[in-house]
């Protein structure tokens, strides 16, 4: 484990780099995923169609294809940005499709009567969704969305392969390949770093679930 003492800074940097990718990915995909779910249950056919098409397209495309499409295709069109940004955006676009479906399944668990009652007291579609449906859907949405987010955190390791030079994945490659450390201890350390992220996410989710269970 001497690499930890010799390259602790690089390792910690890599951890925070990966953590920031995962955090932005989580925030962005939750927002976009919710918006897409709203589209899918909205009474407007164009939005419904867009939501459905987006989910079908993105959910059925491998993440690496999206990632390299973003990192190579978009600059090819003359749009330049950092690979970090490309990576985070790809992660958000990809994960949002899964978040959307998880939220939609949660919306389906809310009895139709709740929506009717909301409409009957004069709430608009947006109000019904935001004030009545989604808050109730969230309770049943937390576990599946949590799984999606944890999967995303693990997927974020792939982002390093598309130019992001200092995340945990790149640190691992550097340690084992250029610096010649044995792979197993380095991999173990990387795995522990990811475990710190995923387990704390899991703990947060459990907390969220408990609080929502109380609130009814």
């Amino acid at each position, binding site marked *: 484990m001497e690499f930890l003492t010799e390259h602790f800074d690089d390792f910690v940097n890599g951890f925070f780099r990966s953590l920031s990718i995962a955090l932005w990915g989580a925030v962005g995909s939750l927002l976009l995923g919710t918006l897409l779910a709203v589209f899918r249950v909205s*009474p407007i056919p164009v939005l419904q169609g867009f939501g459905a098409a987006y989910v079908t397209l993105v959910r059925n495309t491998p993440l690496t294809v999206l990632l390299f499409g973003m990192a190579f295709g978009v600059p090819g069109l003359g749009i330049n940005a950092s690979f970090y940004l490309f990576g985070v955006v790809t992660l958000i676009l990809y994960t949002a499709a899964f978040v959307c479906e998880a939220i939609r399944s949660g919306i389906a668990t809310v*009895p139709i*009567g*709740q929506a*009717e*009652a*909301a*409409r*009957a*007291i*004069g*709430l*608009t*579609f947006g*109000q019904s969704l935001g*004030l*009545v449906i989604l*808050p*109730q859907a969230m*309770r049943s949405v937390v576990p599946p969305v949590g799984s999606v987010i944890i999967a995303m955190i693990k997927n974020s390791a792939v982002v390093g392969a598309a130019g992001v030079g200092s995340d945990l994945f790149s640190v691992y490659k550097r340690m084992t390949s250029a610096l010649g450390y044995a792979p197993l201890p380095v991999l173990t350390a990387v795995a522990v770093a990811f475990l710190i992220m995923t387990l704390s996410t899991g703990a947060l989710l459990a907390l969220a679930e408990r609080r929502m269970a109380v*609130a*009814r």
Partner: protein
Amino acid sequence: MTGSESNVASTGRRPLVELRDVDKHFGALHVLRSVDLTVGEGEVVVVIGPSGSGKSTLCRTINRLETIDSGRITLDGRELPAEGKELAKLRADVGMVFQSFNLFAHKTVRDNVTLGPVKARGKSAAEARKKADELLERVGVANQADKYPAQLSGGQQQRVAIARALAMEPKVMLFDEPTSALDPEMINEVLDVMISLAKSGMTMIVVTHEMGFARRAADRVVFMADGQILEDAEPEQFFTAPRHERSKDFLSKILTH
């Protein structure tokens, strides 16, 4: 079939809800067949009929929870708008009480009642709260205001639902089988609230099997079968001398016990 207009004319009320030639299908099922109905201001109309007669659907078309295929529905002289902000505004003027209460499960009793006034009417939270507490007092559940719906009995929940609808200060109240999901011992506490509401002059359209309520509170009884209004009469006349064969048949079935 007796024309409802003649009735309205005789009572001299201002028409508040009007259905003209309303048709609706659920797929191949023709649930409403050329329905005409006028409900005057302050009038209490009870809609009865066998299950599947279309009475619930009729009730739900009035605030457009169900759309119609053809015909016209007007509320206070204005035709129901299509989906959007205008419709939301109209719905705020129409109170609705559901068979299964449909209280917002994630909100306290008080918040159930204040949500509409604050969000749809733009009232201040304090004002809405004051009004809510009054209404909860009126329906007899003031001491439950901070509980969640699931902690209440069915009868209490339904009374909260009535308070929630009243909080919008609606022009008309729709009741879609409000006691059908209740345990028998709770039916009366809800009916009592409804009767006092009727006496206060609220315009009400009530789909129910509660003949007692119809006798005591209704101005008119409308009998539906197979998507049609077959009879429209004052309660006394309807229960003692129904004119239509189907009405007689229906009454004999439910009144023998």
